[in-house]
């Protein structure tokens, strides 16, 4: 047989306009995943005072700093970074682990990322209450309209009581996480210009 052997016809039905269906899906997705709450520490002193465990605090801070260096926000220009995070709150890195030199904001604190303890929990993060306490960096951008705590990919961490923030489910996902969008509309203009030149609606498949 030279043709597709079988097609799931039910899966191919689109009796409603596809755009409407997608809008419904987007609305549903936007509403799900309320996340959880977590402790946030602004400094080692803050952590020691509230947690009472100096070693755990240092371990968390170091881990968050490493994550910040590896996967935190960065900018090609120091000015751009300071415009976002405030004067004197960014550092220039000439030797960014083999990458192009760049500016990065200093971590402003970290979230204690507490999960059930399992075999993958490193010794330094194991807690007596049966949890594994990882840590992720948090930032405090000062751009107009932004205040409070944010993750490295620009997701807000809304306050949830004294020393605690609400953490979206996918706040620290490494793959297709979320970020803050600086601008839109940088693509598609070539298509509209060509459509104008052709004098008609055009399509870009071939």
């Amino acid at each position, binding site marked *: 047989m030279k043709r597709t052997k079988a097609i799931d016809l039910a899966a*191919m*039905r689109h009796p409603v306009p596809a755009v409407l269906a997608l809008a419904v899906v987007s609305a549903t997705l936007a509403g799900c995943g309320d996340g959880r709450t977590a402790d946030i520490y602004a400094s080692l002193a803050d952590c020691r005072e509230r947690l009472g465990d100096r070693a755990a605090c240092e371990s968390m801070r170091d881990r968050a700093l490493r994550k910040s260096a590896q996967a935190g926000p960065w900018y090609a220009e120091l000015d751009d970074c300071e415009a976002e995070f405030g004067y004197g709150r960014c550092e220039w890195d000439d030797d960014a682990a083999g990458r192009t030199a760049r500016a990065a904001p200093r971590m402003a604190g970290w979230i204690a990322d507490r999960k059930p303890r399992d075999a993958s929990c490193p010794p330094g993060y194991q807690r007596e209450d049966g949890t594994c306490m990882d840590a992720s960096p948090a930032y405090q951008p000062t751009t107009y309209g932004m205040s409070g705590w944010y993750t490295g990919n620009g997701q807000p961490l809304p306050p949830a009581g004294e020393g605690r923030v609400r953490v979206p489910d996918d706040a620290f996902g490494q793959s297709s996480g979320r970020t803050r969008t600086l601008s839109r509309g940088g693509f598609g203009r070539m298509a509209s210009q060509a459509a104008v030149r052709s004098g008609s609606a055009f399509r*870009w498949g071939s």
Partner: protein
Amino acid sequence: MQRVSVAPRSDWQQKARTYGFRFHSMYGQPYWDESAYYRFGLRQVEDGVEAVTAELHRMCLAAVGHVVQSEELLSRFAIPSAFHDAVRASWERGDATLYSRLDLSWDGVGPARLLENNADTPTSLYETGFWQWLWLEDLIAAGALPAHADQFNSLQEQLIERLAQLARMVGATLPLHVSCCRGSEEDRGTVQYLQDCAHQAGVATRFVHIEDLGEGIDGSLTDLDDNVIRWMFKLYPWEFLMRDEAAALLPGCGVRFIEPWWKAVVANKAILAVLWELFPGHPNLLPAWFEADAPSLSRGQWVRKPMYSREGANVVLLREGQVIEDSGGPYGSEGCIVQAWHPLPVHAGRHVLVGSWLVGDQPAGMSIREDVGPITRDLSRFVPHALID
């Protein structure tokens, strides 16, 4: 190769509504035409199209390997120098391709000739992979075609398999963002079809219009929900992406594109000139040159095509130095190529073009377009085919 008249299914428009095939007519003209089909033999298509497609594809890949080694050629292909490295790196990494379509002039008897390689943003995918498949199944079920009738068309099956394979390559949990421009029902339908195939491959998708793409704080591309895009199908040509305002973002944005960067070379009509240089006299090629290198056009029949053009736009047919057809359109400023004119076969007064599909590196199916004129355009009718021995 016969054009056979056949009664359209009485309920085909109802079916089109059920399955969401909304562009069967465009601008008031029928696009899908099932009042006839093209009949071929199995061996005829296996030898004349399938094997030729595999061979032409191998030659095209060799030509890409040749072009990416040369800054001069990349410049002649009108690829902006800022992106030469990205194109070359994409080729050297072996970035995976999803699909492409070779357009062939073939009369069913002689050797098929390559007219162009739609390797970046091919459409008529849904009509080929699903809609003409359904037509054949319905006609067999109704007894209008024999039970052993078949079609050269494993496109949907192969697309699903390939998308599952690509998902494993990029990391199975990444969603595939899919994108096209606003304003074209056909492009949106094509992208929706790929979403359907992706879902059947177990791959999650998110749609975003090209015009809504955002620049993330970290130089990433984002969708309207601020999701970072890591893997993306774009029904939008590389030559436009590379010239859009935010083009400088592309090399560092961390997106694995379908189709990959190197398709900017093979989808460029300049590849026809390079193919002729590398494989002169090959029976499935037509003589072709960059316009500046072409012999005198005052004798014989020639076609002048922009290196970048879509849907048969700005194609000029020349005979003995005189323009006998000019399709007009918005393209051509980046330069043209000249190709020997090999007229399409004519059936029932219609010029017939064969589209031959590949998924990955595998030939995957065939589509037939008809036009009353010698240049196949966006509204040229899609007519199904059947293999009946």
